[in-house]
Each structure stands twice: as C-alpha cells, then as structure tokens.
C-alpha cells in the first residue's frame, strides 16, 4: 500500500506549477537528519526558515527513547539529564547503522554505544535493542528513524499549519543505494515522500550558489564562475564536494565521502583516556552502562572545550575505583586522531583531483558540520586548499538543511519574484555503478561523478559456447573488484540464441533520473540484425533486501561461472 501512495505522489509532482498558486503551496520541506543532530527548514515565501520545536530549539538531538509503551524522540522529548540518553534505553546514531550489515566495521564500532548492537558476522542486518525495564527490547534502525520522523512531521505540520508530504532529505555522499532505500522506507513508514535525496555538501553548494547570486545582484557585477570546495564533517560522516557556480546554477564537479566523523574522534579519545575501556564499553551490564555514560559525557565535554582552549583538564570518577584525572592538550588530541585527519585530507585531495580543479582556481572553501570548529580541522582544510581564510557567510550547522529547503522549493515549482529561487543544482553521481564481468571484476557503466540525469550503455558477450542465459549482477562502489562494492541487485537475462562464445551482444544500459532512481535495461542482439532477439529487461534498482551481504556468495556457489559475462572491447 505504501508503494502505491508513493507512485501517486510522484505523478502529482508534475503539476506542481498549479499547486504553487494556491494559498498553501505544497512546498517540500528540507530535512537534515544528522547522526547526532537534526533540523528542518522550509521556504516561507521570501527566505529559508528553520522550524523550532516546542522548546524553541532549531537543532534537535536525533534519538529515540524507549521508556514505557510509547517511544519518544528528540523532537518532543525533554531529557532530564545528559546521562539519560546514555542509559541504554535510548537509540541514537541511527544514521551509522541504517542499511549496514553486521560485517561492516562501522557497525562493529557502534557496539561500543550504550544500547545493544549484536553482530553475527554473516552479512545480515545487525540486531539492535534498547534497555526497557531491565530487558533488551529489539528494534531496527529503520523503525527508530521512522518513529523520529513521525515526530518531526507532526512538529512541522503544527508549525506550518498544513499537511506535510514531500521532503528533501540530505544524505551522506558515501551512502550506497541500498542505504538510501532504507532511508526512503523509514520516510514511507512516517508517511513522507522523498522528493529528492541530496548529498549533504551539494545542499550546502546550493546555498552557496544562492548567496553568490545575491551578491551579484547587489554589486550589479557580472556573474563570473566561482569554484568552491565544500567540506562537511558531522558526527557520523565526512563529505567533500567541488562545485562550479555561476548565475545561481551549482554544478557539482566531484564528490567524495567516508563514514568518518565526530563519533570516531569521541571513541578514539575515550580509548585514550581509559586504555582498557574496550571491555567496559562492550559489556552492557547495568552498572557498566552507567560508567560508560559518564566517560562518554566527560570525553565529549573535553573535546568541545578543546575547540576554544589549548588544553583541558578531565576529572571524572567512574566509581569502582576507576578515576580519570589528567590534562589533555591539542598535540595529544591531534595525535590520537591522526588517522581521522589523514582521511579528511585524502578525501579533499581526491575530490580536487576528480574535479580537475586546481587549488589556485578555488574561490572559496566552505567548512560546515558539527566538527567544523575543531581547530586542527580548520588549519588542515586551509592548508590543503592553500587559503588564508575560510568562507564566512553561512552558519555551519544550518547550511545543509537550508540548502535542502531551497532545493525543496525549486523542485516543488515555486518561483520567487526577487529571483532568490532562480537556482539549480546539477548533481553528479557519488558512486560508480556497474556490473560484474570478466571474472570478479567490477566494470563501471556509469562512472563516479557523472552528471545527472545520466544514461550510459556498454556491450558484453557470453563466456561459453551455447550459453543461453546470463546472470547480471549490479554493483555500486569505488573498488575495482566486486567484493569491495555494494551489490544492488541481480537478474537473469534469458533467451540468448545458442551461438559460439563471444558472438551474442548483451547490451546493458543504465539510466539515472534527477530523483536518483536507477533503472537497468538489458537485451541481447545478434550480429547482423538490429532486432533484439528477446524482449528487453527493465529493472528498477536496488532489488536486494536485507541479507544482501551473502547474496553474491550464494549466487556464486549456485551457478559458478556458467552464466558469466565479458566486456566487448571496441575496435
């Protein structure tokens, strides 16, 4: 049923122009669900406005507490104390868990959180549970996110006095399509339709484009092209984008991202302050959870203070005879998190390289996200980009959601008499999409950083004589081997006429539209005729569901290489 509603809604999107003339236009709201914080914004007719909850907060913590029968999320709930969030009854960091399998290192790192994350290491969805009345009550990341989104929707509907249906969501660059479907499913559970999914730095890029255009209007200058590098580091993810902006059009040149963020810094520091904390963090006994919460709060507090002072004193009594009392300075902090900062640097360099933009041609460097006030990060970004100053014009915690709200207004067909919505983002694909061929090679069909909407095709052929079927496995990722990438789906192409090996031409075409929907077409041609010999296949990706971690292995065990493909080398 949810699917049905989904389709109807996307059809009505085309008649957006008529709607916008009504009193309450159905403008899509922008939602930024961060690993730790969340915010909602909407175009109010003249500018972007961040919505506040009943406690007058613009930034709300992303968590859901399971206390009694009804769970409550960070939008409406008021925490009595910081420790309440760390008592085991609260699920947070959903964004680091959603759509990941239990072999994923990020899931393993999440086992150190106060709630229960169990892994069986077989490539299925991890088991997560919250402590309710001394019992572990199971839930799923999708469910937690959906509960949170229901609250968020209720809050927005109350504020805007109209039903909310369409949302523009910001997502990390490194999210696979499978993870995106999980996010979409959580939205559908909450009665929301995802109009657009925007990688976070591209939302910031759109806001940047709007600001640049406004400056042009004020100065009456010519709208020359500006290249900007956007670096966004939050609690869970780090993303980089290079954008070329002119006349309100933000053209994404390249994207890069990784699941590295403030949470890693926090865990590194916890390990540094209490070297044998591993056992404590993993045990999940009632007393241990409490001690772990104290350590977490103390560490978090120390990291925050380190943004403003060169050294901090940590003094915390964890009980049970464990007492931490020491001073931490910048050098120590930077050394402990060396790997995190190295990863940040490599992401920036990779993104600049992919964008084919020289450092000298960068007009602005924008640093946003929850980690943007870390002094080391600021100097690192400035050094890599050879800039004296970072871009000042935006609030680092509100930039992404504001950009999402702008995109929501543009994609809903709203126009602004002052030209403030004369904007467009031309997106690029964050990950390469291709198929398995030539053994276990990943053959990209739509490479990374291809302008969207995109359509590409590639020809393959059979590996055996008289091969009548071919198994097509669609992968997404950056690796050259299929094992390093995410499996999106698979289907069998049948009805290949018996012929010697290498004669039938198997054509695979991929099409990504502006709302990031991927369709895969596949068909067989025989040399000498322009007719496809069998009806073409059209498959909407991804098709895999939970447990996709071992799909590829099982398929390989069942079919071996009997249904394989090889690429056709163009002469």
């Amino acid at each position, binding site marked *: 049923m949810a699917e049905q509603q989904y389709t109807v809604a996307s059809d009505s999107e085309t008649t957006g122009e008529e709607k916008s003339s009504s009193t309450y236009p159905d403008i899509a709201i922008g939602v930024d669900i961060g690993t730790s914080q969340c915010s909602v914004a909407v175009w109010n007719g003249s500018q972007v406005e961040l919505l506040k909850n009943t406690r007058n907060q613009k930034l709300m913590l992303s968590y859901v507490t399971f206390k009694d029968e009804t769970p409550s999320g960070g939008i409406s709930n008021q925490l009595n104390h910081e420790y309440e969030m760390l008592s085991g009854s609260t699920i947070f960091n959903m964004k680091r868990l959603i759509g990941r399998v239990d072999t994923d290192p990020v899931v393993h790192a999440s086992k150190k959180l106060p709630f229960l994350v169990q892994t069986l290491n077989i490539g299925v969805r991890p088991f997560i549970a919250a402590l309710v009345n001394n019992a572990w009550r199971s839930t799923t990341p999708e469910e937690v996110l959906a509960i949170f989104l229901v609250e968020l929707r209720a809050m927005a509907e109350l504020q805007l006095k109209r039903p909310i249906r369409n949302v523009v969501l910001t997502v990390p660059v490194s999210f696979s399509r499978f993870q995106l479907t999980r996010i979409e499913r959580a939205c559908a559970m909450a009665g929301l339709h995802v109009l657009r999914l925007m990688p976070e730095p591209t939302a910031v890029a759109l806001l940047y484009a709007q600001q640049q255009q406004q400056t042009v209007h004020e100065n009456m200058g010519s709208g020359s*092209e500006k290249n900007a590098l956007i670096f966004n580091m939050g609690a869970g993810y780090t993303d980089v984008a290079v954008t070329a902006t*002119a*006349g309100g*059009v933000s053209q994404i040149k390249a994207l890069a991202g990784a699941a590295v963020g403030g949470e890693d810094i926090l865990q590194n520091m916890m390990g540094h302050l209490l070297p044998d904390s591993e056992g404590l963090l993993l045990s999940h006994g009632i007393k241990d959870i409490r001690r772990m919460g104290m350590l977490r709060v103390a560490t978090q507090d120390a990291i925050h203070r380190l943004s403003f002072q060169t050294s901090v004193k940590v003094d915390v009594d964890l009980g049970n005879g464990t007492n931490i009392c020491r001073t931490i300075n910048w050098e120590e902090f930077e050394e402990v998190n060396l790997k995190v900062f190295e990863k940040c640097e490599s992401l920036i360099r990779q993104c600049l390289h992919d964008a084919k933009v020289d450092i000298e041609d960068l007009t602005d460097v924008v640093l946003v996200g929850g980690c943007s006030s870390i002094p080391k990060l600021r100097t690192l970004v400035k050094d890599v980009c050879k800039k004296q100053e970072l871009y000042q014009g935006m609030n680092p915690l509100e930039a992404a959601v504001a950009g999402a709200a702008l995109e929501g207004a543009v994609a809903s*067909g709203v126009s602004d008499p002052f030209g403030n919505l004369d904007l467009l*983002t031309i997106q690029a694909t964050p990950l390469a999409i291709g198929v398995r061929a030539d053994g276990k090679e990943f053959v990209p069909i739509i490479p990374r950083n291809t302008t969207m*909407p*995109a359509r590409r095709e590639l020809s393959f052929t059979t590996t055996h004589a008289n091969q009548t079927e071919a198994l097509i496995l669609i992968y997404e990722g950056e690796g050259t081997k299929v094992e390093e990438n995410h499996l999106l789906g698979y289907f069998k192409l049948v009805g290949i006429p018996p012929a010697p090996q290498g004669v039938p031409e198997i054509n695979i075409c991929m099409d990504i539209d502006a709302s990031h929907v991927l369709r895969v077409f596949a068909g067989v041609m025989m040399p000498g005729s322009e007719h496809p010999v069998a009806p073409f296949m059209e498959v909407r990706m991804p098709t895999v569901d939970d447990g996709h971690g071992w799909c590829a292995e099982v398929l390989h065990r069942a079919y071996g290489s009997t249904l394989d493909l090889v690429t056709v080398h163009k002469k």
Partner: protein
Amino acid sequence: MSLLLSWFHLRRRLRCPKIRCCNQRASSVRIEKNYYELLGVSVDSTPQEIKEAYRKLQKKYHPDIAGQQGHEHTLMLNEAYKVLVRDDLRRGYDASIGNTRVRLGRNNGVAGYSSWNGALRPHALFVDENACIGCRECVHYASNTFLFDEAVGCARVKVQYGDDDRKIEVSVESCPVNCIHWVDKEELAVLEFLIRPQAKEGKGVFGQGWERPANVFMAAKSFNRQLKQQADNHRDNVGAAAEEETPAQAEARANASMKIEMEKYSVFWNLVKGIFWNK
C-alpha cells in the same frame, strides 16, 4: 515504455550518427540537432560561452524545473556539454561533423562569408586575398559590395551585387593586380572558406600563426574532390545501413519521437479536448 523506445532511439543515434542524418529526411523524423545547435552556440564559441549556454538551458530543461519531461532533453544536453567542454573530445567531434557543415554550405551556395543582395545569380565575386595588395580601389568604387579588412590588410566581398552592375564593373577593372574574380556561385562557399586564414599548429615557439593555401583555386579543386569521395563513402554506408532498419522499426522510432514532442503539448491538447467535449 516510452523510456525504452527512446533508449532505442538513442542507441541508434550513438552508434551510427551518419545513418541518422539521412533517415530523418527519408522518414520525416524530427530533425536531429548537432551538439552546437543543441546548446545554441556557434561552432567557434569559447568554453566559457558553452558553459554559459549549458547552464542557461539546464535552467529551462532540468527535471527539477521542467519535471520528468525534461529528462530526455537534459540527457542530450549533458552529452553535448561533456563533449564540447573537453578539448580532445570536441576536436574529435568537430572532425566528425566538420565536413557536413562545409558541404551544406556549398549546396546552398550562400552560406559562405558574403551575403547576397537580391536574387541569386550564376556568378559571384571573389577576392583572392593572397594577391590583393590592399589598394582599396574596389572599396572606393563599390563600397556596398566590398569592404576592407584592416586586420588582414585585404579587400573582401561583403555583399554580392551590393552595388549596381556598372559600379561593380568599374571596381573590378580598377584592381591593379586583377585579384577580383568572377566565380561560379557553387564554388563560392568553398573558396571563401579556404581563403580565411586557418590557425597553424606550432612546435614550441616555431611555426605558429595563421596560414592559407597559396593557390586558393587549386586548393578548392582538391577540397571538392575530397568532399566528393567522402560523400560517396557516406552514400555506401548509408545504403548498407538503411537496409538494416525495417519499416516497422522506422515507424516505431518515428512514433517514439513524436510522442516525446506531443508530451510537450499534452496539457494544451487536453484543454482543447475539454472545450470540444463541453460543446
């Protein structure tokens, strides 16, 4: 379904661009544009102009703004932009369409440098700029026909038959080096194309600059021969390829593109239908 059909359409387009341009005349499929026409830029536009044109068109056709109907068009824009904005790809593309451009010029007879005043005549004026000494006599006698290019230091025909016949006759006679020629109008475009200085590829600081054929009439002859050869090859290819497409396929393709065209008008069409039914 329409997506699938249009994919076929695209496949054919990508694979054999030459077939496409002949079939469109045969089966009256909508006229395919080349990348420059698609972006609405001139063949010699700078990358900056191409970028600007691309952005302007994207603002009109991108699915964010135009809805799902903009998908196909945006795909084509993206493809055109990708090719034209990269130097190496653009050079390759120019080579593949360059011939068609000049040939069309010759067939029309008027697409060279000069424009025509009044009806076409069998002969046209042409200044051999290699021989011209820049005396400005012709410009003096027939200022509406000739112009003087200060940059090159030569006279050139601006408008064919821009002055009356007597003035033109006097101006041709006045040339001290007899560099004003009467040529067939079919020859004109090629001659005017070849006489324009072409950028020469240099090696380091040596050999750069501009050049044009020493004897433009000989160059035109060999150029025409080359074109003819290519046209023959082209026709052979077309002959072979045309057989590959069955009438049914051609029809399907025509329908597909018509449907794409019709989609634009469907709102209007429904409106018209509504009025009709109400009456």
